[in-house]
């Protein structure tokens, strides 16, 4: 199949004119085109089936549920747009939207920037480089719940090691998890720490894919370190940055385990993000239909953000 397609498209291959050949070639080409059309579907169909079963079908069911008043389990009555009306007029919904935005802004650029910084640092020859890379990557392979429990102990306002350190160096203690104004900061710190490793590894791979000749040429032309980074390295990292930002936003909008374990959404509502709000609406308040409506809102927001970022990225590429 591949050879047929390449022969057809390769201008260097010359096809001799012959009375019956056009017919045979055209039949072959048609077969090739048919195969070319079917083959991708054959390759993606296993994934597609799994996706349809475990992602698209539940998503569709959630959309249907969002128009119903559903009991804790089973049974529901059609209520039209009522769940969406309730959602848009709920103070707690908007609080959780705001908290989600703050959480996302706090985690996405920070973890990407720190990941890049580490990647640039560890892209050089350093003693024990492999061990340092592994140490930074370690949080990524540890359970989020386990990390969160450790964080709870570290940031404990009464006997946590972080406050003990601050006190030892003459700084005031901070109510990391028990103050509504600090709790979100603490959760963001915990999440950023957990994510840095993956960002670092991804950027490291991208950095190693940059042709050193480009940087050497720029250096010969007199470009300083900052100029080489900002004019060559950074633009070449654009696809990676785009990928990480999209992934990070998705992860941030879906953040649950760390917040669930560290603060339970409190103190008050200070760390109640959208997923937390969906969870409590469904399983504590017993409003499955309403929780589905908030879930549909979240999916729509995610889709909109992804499309927006994709268009912005395309426009940027066109300009460059």
């Amino acid at each position: 199949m591949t050879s047929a397609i390449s022969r057809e498209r390769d201008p260097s291959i010359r096809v001799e004119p012959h009375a019956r050949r056009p017919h045979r070639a055209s039949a072959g080409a048609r077969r090739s085109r048919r195969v070319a059309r079917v083959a991708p579907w054959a390759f993606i169909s296993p994934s597609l089936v799994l996706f349809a079963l475990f992602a698209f079908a539940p998503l569709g069911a959630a959309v249907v549920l969002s128009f119903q008043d559903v009991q804790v389990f089973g049974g529901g009555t059609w209520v039209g747009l009522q769940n969406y009306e309730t959602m848009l007029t709920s103070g707690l919904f908007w609080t959780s939207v705001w908290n989600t935005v703050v959480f996302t802004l706090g985690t996405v650029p920070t973890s990407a920037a720190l990941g890049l910084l580490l990647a640039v640092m560890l892209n050089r020859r350093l003693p024990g480089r492999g061990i340092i890379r592994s140490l930074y990557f370690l949080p990524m392979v540890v359970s989020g719940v386990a990390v969160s429990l450790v964080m709870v102990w570290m940031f404990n306002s009464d006997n946590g090691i972080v406050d003990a350190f601050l006190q030892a160096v003459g700084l005031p203690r901070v109510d990391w998890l028990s103050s509504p104004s600090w709790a979100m900061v603490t959760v963001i710190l915990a999440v950023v720490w957990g994510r840095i490793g993956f960002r670092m590894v991804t950027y490291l791979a991208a950095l190693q894919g940059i042709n050193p000749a480009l940087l050497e040429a720029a250096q010969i032309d007199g470009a300083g370190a900052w100029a080489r980074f900002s004019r060559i390295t950074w633009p070449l990292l654009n696809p990676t940055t785009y990928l990480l930002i999209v992934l990070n936003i998705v992860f941030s909008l879906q953040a649950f385990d760390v917040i669930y374990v560290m603060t339970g959404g409190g103190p008050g509502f200070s760390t109640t993000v959208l997923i937390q709000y969906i969870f409590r609406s469904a399983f504590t308040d017993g409003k499955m239909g309403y929780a589905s409506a908030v879930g549909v809102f979240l999916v729509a927001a995610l889709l909109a953000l992804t499309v927006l970022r994709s268009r912005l990225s395309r426009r940027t590429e066109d300009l460059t």
Partner: protein
Amino acid sequence: MSALSSPDGDGRLSRRAVLRYAAAAAGAMALGPAMAACTSPSTSSPGATVGPDTKADLVLTTWNIPADLVAYRRFAAQYKQKHPGVTIKVQVTPNGDFNQYLSTQLAGGNAPDIIRNTWQQIGRWAQNGGFIPLDDYLAPDYGKGFGETFWAAAQLDGKVHGIPQHTDTFATYYRTDVMQRVGASIPSSLDAAWSWDDFLSLAREVKKATGKAAVAYGFEGVNTAYRWLPFLYMHGGQLVKDDGRTPAIDTPEGVEAIAWFQQLYTEGLIPKSNTIKGSTTAAVENTFTSGQVGLMIFGDWIMGEVAKVLAQDKWDITYMPKDRSAASDLGGNLLSVSKTSKNPAVAADFIRFVCDQANMKYFCETDLFLPVRTTLMDEKLDYASNADQMSRFAEQAKTVPAAMAKVETLPNFAAINQVLADQLDLCFIGQQTPKATAAAIADGIKNARS
């Protein structure tokens, strides 16, 4: 759940105990046959279809207390000896995740057959049809063996949805070294329990002595916000009126009770980390065992953990502080049969086996719980450890307000509990006033559903 009848009208378990004792005495002559009924359920109850040849594989789910798992597995093995064809697997469901586990399992039609659940949880599942009524599997007078409040709380619309297995409650743990340092006199009876004023003064002294905080409270995350309620009821307040729907907390008593507890936080008497939503069992215990506080208001079930870390002469138990009356937390569990069980008769029979007199006694004595069968409630149990402390918990358990128990078993209590967690957290840790908090809780209750 159904109304908890209160013959003497003041809603106290201790008063109703008079009737319980009378019933127990009147039934003394029938005790022998009753005991026989407990130990050989398969032959004496209507609806029971379990015999020596019965074959069934069941799953019992419980939360993760290691000693309880051992006990349930022991019961399963003993039951298998009687019914070789019946295998009961004991499985753990994390208590904090109980609601979502059970919702999804019931919705998926694969919930465990036998479900250990709390008083605060049973209402929702009974109301939504998650637990089946057990009446067909029980003798008509089966409930007479149980404490009146507990048996009433196990029912919804007159149908039994769970069989009470044990109860537990809160009392005050204190460190002997700290109490000696501040010269505190320890109450030796319920009547002599510290008043709110006494307790507040003592807590201030304790804070000076420890240099950190004074009293840890047994919050263990969002699901346990209801544990604040004894303070509302001991001050003469109510969360919901007797109709089970109308909020009753937005009253002077309600606001004062919130304000009193808020003071414990604002004065730094309760550790900062001991918030309703952020607390964990281990962290709360740690503040006590490490000496950061000298007092801890918590349940009997953590005594074993405390005893592992602190020598017995370093700590002891006294009663809850009291105000206009005494009150304490309603703890404990029931065993229910899920609607998806394929062998409900066998499941119900096993539950009766676990909750019979001998096994309830064993469970309570081994795992440090309080019994819910009337004959055991008045008996001095031979606890595996801390018998003296358990006797104080047993006394304290009689102060659980019946009105509070009724509220906590309402079908919409899970949602009400969430409202309590949100609003009390905003008040205790944030800036919300007690008045605004009471009003917000009342609003939330109006919208709470099962």
